């Protein structure tokens, strides 16, 4: 058994006065103080520090700034799925008895460059660098191709993609650590500028700085609530989008989900999914079996996905409005699931939630990680 015994979050956004190290330390200290325990391993989740901050070796980097020189520490990278992958591997350190208590801290500092060309170049390291990005492919352009394929295949209009961003913004208003805490008007979606046709700005999650930390332990010993990681699963798909047969499917999601669900009859009360774009959010809920192919928009337009609906999705606001500190996002998701199942999501609580699913996705669906989290 592996338990989450404490978490710490920074707000997601533009932290002009904080570096990678300040963010990592702030979230880590909060997590350590919330459970009041010592750790014997550090796992750092991050996607872009090499290209954006000129800093790698984040295990040693975080251990140093956290006053934990000497502890074993390592960085785990899987693009947008880095956070989920870090929690998965850290949890295996605990279950294999390599460690008693592991601090997993996800951190990303991406706003030091304000030009979109630079953030696009950084994010394009998550796709095929030599045969996609070399030809001018951005990560957003990959989402655009997927969106176009989906619109053609299922005869879906552009407006039908507005339901996910609208709900995410509505949810984030109540989430203290969210980046975009304001409601969106439907007409803002319609007039949003084009990023890569047909994808527009309001289909996409904003980039933000942030850090999230969780402490994993072999015992349910947290002084402020405990949650169990019931099971986890991970799967990959081709790094290159152009080699896939059907762009409207992301098999890594359903395979990760299936692997997590083996040997358990887990029933999530809510879902925290990786909506880098509205189209990725739609495909994610279809791959998780929550909507029929081509019909995901109804889940969001009907109110079913609302926080008080039968299938709450991203009660905190998702990547779209909580924000997307890339490599840290998956740790945010697990920390948010913990706050939900321990009943401490003040203002953004799914009533009575005892179990939740998190889904982190890297690249354009090329790496997916699912965690099942239950309050104990």
């Amino acid at each position, binding site marked *: 058994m592996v338990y989450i015994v404490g978490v710490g979050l920074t707000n997601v956004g533009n932290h002009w006065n904080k570096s990678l190290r300040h963010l990592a330390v702030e979230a880590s200290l909060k997590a350590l103080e919330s459970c009041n325990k010592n750790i014997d391993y550090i796992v750092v989740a991050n996607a872009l520090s090499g290209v954006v901050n000129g800093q790698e070796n984040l295990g040693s980097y975080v251990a140093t700034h956290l006053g934990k020189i000497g502890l074993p520490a390592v960085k785990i990278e899987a693009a947008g799925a880095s956070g989920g992958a870090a929690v998965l591997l850290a949890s295996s350190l605990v279950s294999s008895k390599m460690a008693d208590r592991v601090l997993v801290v996800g951190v990303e500092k991406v706003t030091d460059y304000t030009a979109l060309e630079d953030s696009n170049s950084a994010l394009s390291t998550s796709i095929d660098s030599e045969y996609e990005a070399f*030809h001018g492919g951005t990560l*957003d352009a990959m989402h*655009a*191709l997927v969106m176009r394929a989906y619109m053609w295949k299922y005869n879906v209009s552009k407006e039908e993609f507005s339901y996910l961003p609208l709900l995410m913004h509505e949810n984030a208003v109540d989430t203290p650590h969210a980046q975009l805490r304001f409601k969106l008007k439907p007409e803002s979606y319609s007039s949003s500028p084009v990023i890569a046709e047909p*994808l527009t700005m309001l289909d996409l999650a904003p980039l933000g700085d942030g850090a999230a930390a969780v402490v994993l332990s072999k015992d349910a010993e947290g002084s402020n609530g405990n949650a169990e990681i019931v099971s986890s699963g991970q799967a990959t798909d081709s790094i290159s989008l*152009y*080699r896939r047969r059907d762009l409207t499917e992301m098999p890594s999601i359903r395979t990760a989900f299936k692997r997590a669900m083996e040997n358990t009859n887990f029933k999530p009360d809510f879902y925290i999914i990786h909506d880098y774009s509205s189209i990725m959010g739609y495909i994610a809920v279809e791959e998780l079996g929550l909507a029929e192919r081509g019909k995901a928009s109804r889940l969001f337009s009907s109110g079913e996905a609302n926080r008080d609906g039968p299938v709450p999705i991203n009660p905190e606001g998702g990547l779209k409005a909580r924000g997307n500190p890339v490599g840290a996002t998956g740790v945010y998701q697990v920390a948010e699931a913990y706050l939900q199942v321990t009943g401490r999501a003040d203002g953004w609580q799914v009533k009575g939630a005892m179990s939740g699913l998190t889904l982190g996705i890297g690249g354009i669906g090329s790496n997916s990680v699912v965690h099942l989290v239950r309050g104990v």
Partner: protein
Amino acid sequence: MWAYWQSVPAHWREIPARYRLEGGRCMDCGYIMLPKEDICPVCGSKNIETVILPRKGKVLNYTVVWNALRGYEYYTPYVLAIIELEDGSRIMAQLTDISPSEAKKGMEVEMVLRKTKVSGESGIIAYSYKFRPVIR
């Protein structure tokens, strides 16, 4: 920044694929790939022969990129497409010699060699395949 873009050998070793569409064909399952791999991504076979892919194909999917990468500002907006070549293989490339509004699904295109990326004042100028509408 982006030092890996400035590298001469990093571009040079991809030249067979980028200049003349030199790819691979799996001799066990028939899958045709660009670039050539050591292991077939479909069936796992190591039995791959070198083949030159056909220079003509049709547009399967495309997007007009308005928000580009560093180094591609000069071309923005540009059309990025997934193209199915005449042998059924797939490739990602820019469309050229057209305005973005002319791009459409099913459009017949052919390969041309074009300047693709300029990496700053001291970096290399990389050429590679792009595709233009077939001239009849």
